[in-house]
């Protein structure tokens, strides 16, 4: 019974998935309810098995020292599984609202819950073999989520994702093979299993093993030469992107790195092997390059993706410092970045959901229409920059302390520099949405009208045809949603976005103008004279299902910033295990 209680979190999502898959058992209408019940039960089970169950280790299948499926609960498991399962609940509710307009719900929720099972497996793994198994499964389960839109572009990104992931996993196996040849054991123990005495005679083997595994797990943690799958994976629906960035994929990479460094090799051994000097350049480049690349992205989600790369660099830096403060900073940032990034993504998703905007230049003045959402965004952004009293400040503080402990001022400079860049790429979004007027675009409209005839002749027929169809559909949708409130302005904005989606390259300009005029005409005829004046800001706040998670997360961000002690004490046990 205790055994079952312990592995319940691994089973509940799988059982939920079995229900979700079954069309006869669960109708489309009840789908979201089952998902909600599953993730909530799972959360309860996680809490039960972490805190109220005496059993902390269980062998599911032990054939020999190598083939051993083994689950174990320690403090690090608690941190990661609590983080994942709670954020999963929030994401689930967000996704119910967000996925309204997407297709293939059943497929989405199937893999959504299945990935939760895999993440729990990653968290509960008691040895490297089990962890690796779940790590591979993670790639396989998240792939359908990444390619969920089903377009050629999505499939291409999925391909890239899988190539990088399997390449990384292969490096991990390489490292595991070399490790196992030396130790004959792969279970996670506090202070590591690689004894200092083992180093004599196996130095090269262990060194290569560490490097191979670090780079291998580093692929999922978006270490710089292996990072480019992450921005590409932005084609996924936003709840997926949010999860990928916050907990599911990149954080399991980071989690694995902590497991490997502190629970397999151990601090002393890594220091004795002296391998960090080869890896630090990668990490430093990751931090700086991630934020530099983020600066010039116009696509909102891609900007956040590059920001993730940079922030993950912080965590890796903290891990590689090999000091208690550094690790504490890394663990704090693991949690804080998860909460912050998921908020940012939720906001961007809300914007896209309500207005179909995807680019920064489109969201001028949107802060007036979505004040609560954008305020949450701003708070999260400030936190990521590292300004008190938010949680981002706390983690950066400890990272800085860690750098001071090893007496390396370069790292502190890099931390500060990157914080500066972070402000440079996140705050303009808030500024654009609140303070830049969206009116400038309106003046151009007369010009468009004048050139309508000529442009009409020039435009490519087929492109115009399809774009017009799409636009009309979209307009009808919006018209239904915002029957009375929607004025001239919304229609205009929507159409604008539609163009960005549909019409590319050469056809872009012509289609743009054609569409705009048609939209204007359409709105005029529908609304009569009412559409002519549209200066008053319209409330466009997302539905409650999306808004509440965002607000809740923002409260958590500030809360963790003001009262960091609880969480630091909680993490203290992990630090004790590691050092």
């Amino acid at each position, binding site marked *: 019974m205790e055994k079952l209680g312990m592995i319940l979190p691994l089973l509940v999502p799988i059982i939920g998935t079995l229900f979700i898959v079954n069309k006869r058992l669960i109708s489309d209408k009840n789908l979201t309810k089952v998902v909600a019940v599953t993730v909530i039960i799972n959360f309860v089970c996680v809490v039960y098995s972490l805190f109220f169950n005496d059993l902390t280790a269980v062998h599911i*299948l032990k*054939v*020999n020292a*190598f*083939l051993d*499926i083994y689950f174990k609960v320690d403090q690090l498991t608690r941190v990661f599984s609590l983080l994942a399962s709670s954020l999963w609940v929030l994401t689930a509710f967000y996704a119910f609202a967000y996925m309204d307009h997407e297709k293939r719900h059943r497929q989405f929720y199937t893999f959504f819950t299945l990935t939760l099972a895999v993440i729990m497996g990653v968290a509960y793994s008691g040895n490297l*073999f089990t962890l*690796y*198994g779940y790590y*591979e*499964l993670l790639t*396989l389960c998240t*792939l*359908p989520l990444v*390619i969920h*839109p*089903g*377009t*050629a572009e*999505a*499939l291409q990104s*999925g*391909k890239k994702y*899988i*190539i990088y992931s*399997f*390449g990384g996993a*292969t*490096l991990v*196996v*390489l490292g595991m*093979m*070399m490790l*196992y*040849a030396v130790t004959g054991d792969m279970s996670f123990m506090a202070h590591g299993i690689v004894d200092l005495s083992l180093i004599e005679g196996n130095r090269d*083997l262990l060194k290569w093993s560490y490097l191979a595994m670090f780079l291998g797990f580093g692929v999922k943690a978006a270490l710089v030469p292996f990072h480019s799958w992450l921005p590409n994976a932005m084609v996924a629906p936003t709840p997926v992107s949010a999860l990928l960035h916050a907990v599911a994929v990149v954080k399991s990479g980071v989690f694995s790195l902590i497991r490997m460094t502190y629970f397999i090799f151990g601090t002393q051994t890594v220091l004795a092997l002296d391998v960090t000097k080869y890896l630090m350049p990668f990490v430093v480049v990751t931090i700086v390059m991630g934020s530099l690349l983020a600066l010039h992205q116009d696509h909102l989600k891609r900007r956040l993706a590059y920001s993730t790369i940079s922030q993950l660099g912080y965590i890796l830096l903290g891990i590689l410092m090999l000091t208690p403060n550094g690790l504490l900073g890394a663990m704090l940032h693991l949690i804080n970045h998860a909460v912050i990034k998921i908020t940012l993504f939720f906001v961007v998703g809300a914007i896209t959901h309500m207005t179909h905007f995807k680019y920064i230049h489109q969201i001028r003045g949107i802060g007036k229409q979505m004040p609560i959402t954008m305020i949450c965004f701003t708070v999260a952004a400030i936190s990521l920059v590292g300004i008190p009293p938010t949680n981002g400040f706390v983690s950066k503080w400890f990272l800085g302390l860690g750098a001071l402990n090893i007496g390396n001022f370069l790292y502190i400079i890099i931390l500060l520099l990157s914080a500066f860049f972070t402000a440079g790429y996140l705050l303009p979004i808030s500024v654009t949405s609140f303070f830049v007027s969206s009116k400038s675009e309106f003046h151009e409209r007369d010009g468009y009208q004048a050139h309508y005839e000529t442009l009409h002749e020039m435009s490519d027929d087929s492109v115009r045809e399809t774009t017009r169809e799409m636009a009309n559909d979209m307009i009808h949708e919006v018209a239904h949603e915002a029957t009375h409130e929607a004025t001239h302005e919304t229609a205009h904005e929507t159409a604008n976005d539609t163009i960005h989606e549909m019409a590319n390259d050469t056809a872009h300009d012509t289609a743009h103008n054609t569409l705009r005029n048609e939209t204007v005409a359409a709105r005029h005829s529908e609304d009569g004279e009412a559409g002519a004046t549209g200066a008053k800001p319209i409330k466009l706040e997302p539905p409650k299902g999306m808004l509440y998670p965002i607000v809740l997360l923002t409260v958590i961000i500030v809360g963790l910033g003001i009262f960091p002690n609880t969480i630091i004490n909680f993490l203290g046990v992990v630090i004790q295990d590691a050092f």
Partner: protein
Amino acid sequence: MLQCLTLVTHNTASPNLVKLIPLVSIMLLMLSAFMMPLLKKKRHLFGLAGGALAILMVLSFVNVAYIYQNGGYYFDIGHFPAPFGISLRIGEIESLIALLFAIVDLMVTWYAYYSLEKEIKESRIAFFHTMNLLLLASLLGIVFTNDIFNGFVFLEVSTLAACGIIVVKDKKTNIKAGLKYLILSSLGSGLVLMGIAFIYSLSGHLSMDYIHEAMIANLDGKQNTILISVILFTVGLGIKGAMFPLHIWLPDAHASAPSPSSAILSALVIKAPVIFLIKVFYRVYGTQIIHETVILDLVLMFGVMGMIFGSLFARSQKELKRMIAYSSVAQMGYIFFAIGLGNTLGVVMAIYHIVAHALTKSSLFLAAGSFIEQTGFKHIEDFRGIGKEMPVTLGIFTVSGLSMIGIPVLPGFISKWNLAMASIQIDKLYLLIFLLISSLLNASYYFPIIINGYFGEENLDGKVFLSKSKPIKQLLPLIILTVLMVLVGFFSGNLIEFIERGVYTV
């Protein structure tokens, strides 16, 4: 230098019935094979073949159970003791391989019951079964025999029978592929025969144990003769076992044959010569002699080349079955790699991989056969969106593919892992790179099929869910093979232990 078998002395007073099993198996198969032409109805044909194979499977299982309890044994045919008569030697490995062959062949026959007449003329079904059973009999003979000339005879029989199940389709490409196979295989058998001649002139014996003793006794000054003979054996059996540069017959034969034949060819026909090669290396020559020659390094090198180039060729194929056939070349590369490592773990993993690959590849070929049968397409491009029409079959394909790619606990991963351990044991770390590159290459050609099969807006457009799915009774053989494959992965520890008990002294 005695074997690690518990040698059971001849006891005519109380003949142990279990020890008759190997001979009975071969006789049973041959008898049923020759009875086939007498039968006409499809049901009777399949009834006889299935019945014979089912009995064979039970017998083989009893045999394995007996050997698990009591260890291996020798069996003298016709009560003539070894130097004069022919003897069979059945240890852990032989019995395991026999059981494997029986299971796979039974499943393939089950599958063929529903689909064979769609690929070949109905009048040819009797011929197919004759050849199939004869083939299995000869393969078991190759595996069991302790007499090197006897092995050669079975090898020739297997060549002809295998040629039979290739040309059974009566198409131009089949005749061509069959001839190609026949010519190259005969060349291989010829080389093996020459090797036997060399060995006979050295030792004056044909029985493996006696040759070995004689060779150990007068080793001096004969290194060159030994080297020549061992190379003759390696090349000869390498052709039949599709060692990399000698594999050229395989893709044509495997791709053009009917799917059940392809499965048998890939799972069984190329495996038996490899077992024979291992026997020649370690039972005829013995560890001491074989390690003095360069042959193991050569086998290792060809194995590595097979792993890499087989996969590279597979990547560039347009037809599904040709791709799977080239993947077989790559997987045989793993087996030769394992043999070439030259340590105990290497040989154990060669046997393990033979078991794993036989199960995996047969289910892959049968799954591919189902796709082709239900859709009429042959090219990989045309199977986009197949996952919606035939989800279970593509699921089976996926599990097998994942094993090839090396997802943990599936047998492909176990093989790779242990091969890596064996490479580290002999201090050849650079070999790990090849192992891992090859597994990435495997991923590169299995994944696109799976992903395009299940996902993608365009791919799924116009496909109707489950529209081409086969009924469960037709899918069951594939499912059983896949389940067995997964079990082979899960219980790899026990299986490897069992193989290790019977492995020839290395």
